[in-house]
């Protein structure tokens, strides 16, 4: 009856209705963390590992990809549940697919390195680089939409398509997990999606874009003509 430990935590978390209709998160991150403190230490460590694997917020601007792939492998192996490992693989595969589609759209050839990304399908993607859907239309039915969005530069629809795909996957998984650790992880990942969607801000995006441009220009920034 180890599962009983999760009843209090899961019933204390407010229901998340929908992604795109949400205006605010149903619970603040501060309150969520307080509730998550009910988890045993081992579960908390696993949850932190999964969040670190799936979120890029903590990464610097200069990402060492090889180190990131090694770290992902290491963190993935520390996840005790097969369901959660499958979920992490699915999300990482999704990242690899989107990265491959973007690279191909920019005219890049298939990566030469065998271990060029993370997840479980990077080798398959590399060998199907020239197929329109990377040979994965069955597993990822949103690939044609992403291709079309990249072609038409419709970045808003692209972002919504990807968020919706993750939302649906989590919703599907949540029907099989009600009061266990997997259900806690699914809740936190759904909360993160809502948090991400509700925090999109035009002004902040512009400010971040200018910041990235400044970082890219580096010392050449001052040599540009002032507008």
């Amino acid at each position, binding site marked *: *009856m180890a599962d009983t430990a999760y*009843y209090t935590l899961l*019933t*204390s*978390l*407010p*229901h998340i209705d929908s992604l795109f209709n949400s205006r605010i998160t149903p619970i603040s991150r501060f309150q969520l963390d307080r509730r998550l403190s009910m988890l045993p230490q081992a579960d908390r460590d696993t949850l932190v590992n999964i969040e670190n694997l799936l979120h890029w917020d903590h990464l610097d601007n200069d990402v060492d990809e090889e180190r990131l792939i090694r770290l992902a492998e290491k963190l993935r192996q520390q996840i005790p549940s097969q369901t959660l490992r499958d979920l992490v693989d699915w999300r990482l595969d999704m990242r690899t697919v989107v990265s491959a589609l973007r690279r191909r759209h920019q005219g890049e050839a298939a990566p030469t390195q065998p271990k060029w990304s993370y997840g479980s399908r990077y080798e398959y993607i590399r060998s199907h680089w020239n197929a329109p859907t990377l040979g994965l239309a069955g597993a990822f039915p949103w690939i044609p939409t992403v291709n079309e969005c990249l072609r038409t530069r419709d970045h808003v629809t692209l972002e919504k398509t990807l968020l919706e795909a993750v939302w649906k996957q989590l919703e599907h998984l949540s029907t099989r997990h*009600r*009061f266990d650790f997997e259900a806690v992880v699914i809740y936190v990942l759904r909360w993160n999606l809502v948090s991400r969607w509700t925090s999109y801000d035009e002004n902040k995006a512009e400010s971040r874009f200018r910041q990235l441009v400044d970082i890219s220009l580096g010392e050449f920034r001052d040599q540009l003509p002032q507008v």
Partner: protein
Amino acid sequence: MEDFIIALGWLGVFAPVALGAVGSAIGCSVAGQAACGAMLDVESGYGKFVGLSAMPSSQVIYGIVIMFTLAGINMTTNSAPGLFGIGLLTGIALMYSAVYQGQAVAAAINASKNKPEVFGLSIAPAAIVEGFAVFAFVFALVMGANISA
């Protein structure tokens, strides 16, 4: 050998209470934990959650009634195997129904916390599980009466 058969008979007499108590303890604990969690998330209506979480306690009450009924039957080597079978199997049925009723109640608390208007309907699965415990209880009494006859 006769003593062993008599011992099995007494085991059967007490099994409904013991196993029913185990099931009720687990079921009420699960439902109670869910009620405590729900109280952190809602501003009112705590009483109905706590009341609902006591639902799996009925199994141990059925177990006590069965125990007194079976204990009233004269314990002989002829009646002991029957008492053992009825008591043990009824106890197992009561234990599992209490455990699963606790889970059904936890789900009902979670659902009605988010959507108060479904409170009545959300109890239906737990009530159906209660029905199975009642079947085991009633027919244990009927079969016990046959042994005494």
